[in-house]
C-alpha cells in the first residue's frame, strides 16, 4: 500500500501553502482520497503531480512575457525520413 500524506505534509513537500493543496484537489489537478472525513494524498499521486516543468514563456527585451513553442521530438513517422536516398547528385564538372 502506498504511503499517505495529509494536506499539511503535502504542502510541506511541495513547499506551498496548505490552502493551495486544497485548491489543487478541488480543481482536480491533484488526486486525493477521503479516509473517514480526512483528506489523504497517495505518495504516487504526489510524485506524479510533482513532475518536471518547462516554462513555455520567456521575457523579451522590452520585459514582456512572450510564449515560446515547446520543441517537438523527431520520430520514425516523420515525413523527412521518406526522403532518404531520394536523389543522387552527378558532378559533371570538377
Amino acid at each position, binding site marked *: 500500500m502506498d504511503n499517505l500524506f495529509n494536506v499539511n505534509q503535502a504542502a510541506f513537500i511541495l513547499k506551498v501553502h496548505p490552502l493551495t493543496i486544497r485548491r489543487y484537489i478541488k480543481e482536480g489537478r491533484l488526486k486525493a482520497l477521503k479516509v473517514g472525513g480526512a483528506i489523504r494524498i497517495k505518495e504516487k499521486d504526489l510524485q506524479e503531480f510533482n513532475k518536471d516543468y518547462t516554462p513555455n514563456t520567456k521575457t523579451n*527585451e522590452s520585459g514582456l512575457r512572450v510564449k515560446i*513553442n515547446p*520543441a*517537438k*521530438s*523527431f*520520430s*520514425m513517422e*516523420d*515525413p*523527412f*525520413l*521518406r*526522403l*532518404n*536516398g*531520394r*536523389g*543522387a*547528385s*552527378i*558532378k559533371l564538372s570538377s
Partner: protein
Amino acid sequence: MPVPSKKVYLDSSCFIAFVDRAHIKYDQATAYFRYFALEEYQLFSDPFTLLEAYNKFYNDISPSLAKDFMRVMALSNVNLIYPEETDCKNALKAIVTFKTTDLTYPKALLSVLANRRGVPQICSFEYMPALFGLQLFYLPI
C-alpha cells in the same frame, strides 16, 4: 554520470548527405537520422540551413526534389529557429572577434542560434569551430 542531451542542431551537410544517395556520408547520415528517430531526439535547424540544402538539391539533383524537400520540412518535426536582429549582431561580433578565417558567417549564426536554444551538439559533416561550447555530434557506427 551526466545524462547526454537529446537536442541536436542540424547542419545543411547532414540534410544533403541523407537525401543524396551518392554522397560519401550517405550511410552515416542515414544511421544518424534513424538513431534520432528511435531515441526521439529534438532536432533543430534554421531557415538559412534549409535554403542552403534547397539550393544544393536544386542545382545538383533536381528542382522537383528541392521542392519536395521544402514541402517535407514544413511538415517535419524538425524545429526551426528563426534568427532575430540580436542573433545576427551576435554572429557578426563572433566572426569579428574570432582569430582565424575558418569561421564563416552562416556557421557563426548557426552557433548563436544553437546557443540561444541551449543546444549543445551539432550534426555536421564539415569543419565546425567550437563556438559557445558547441560540440560535434558523433555516433560510433
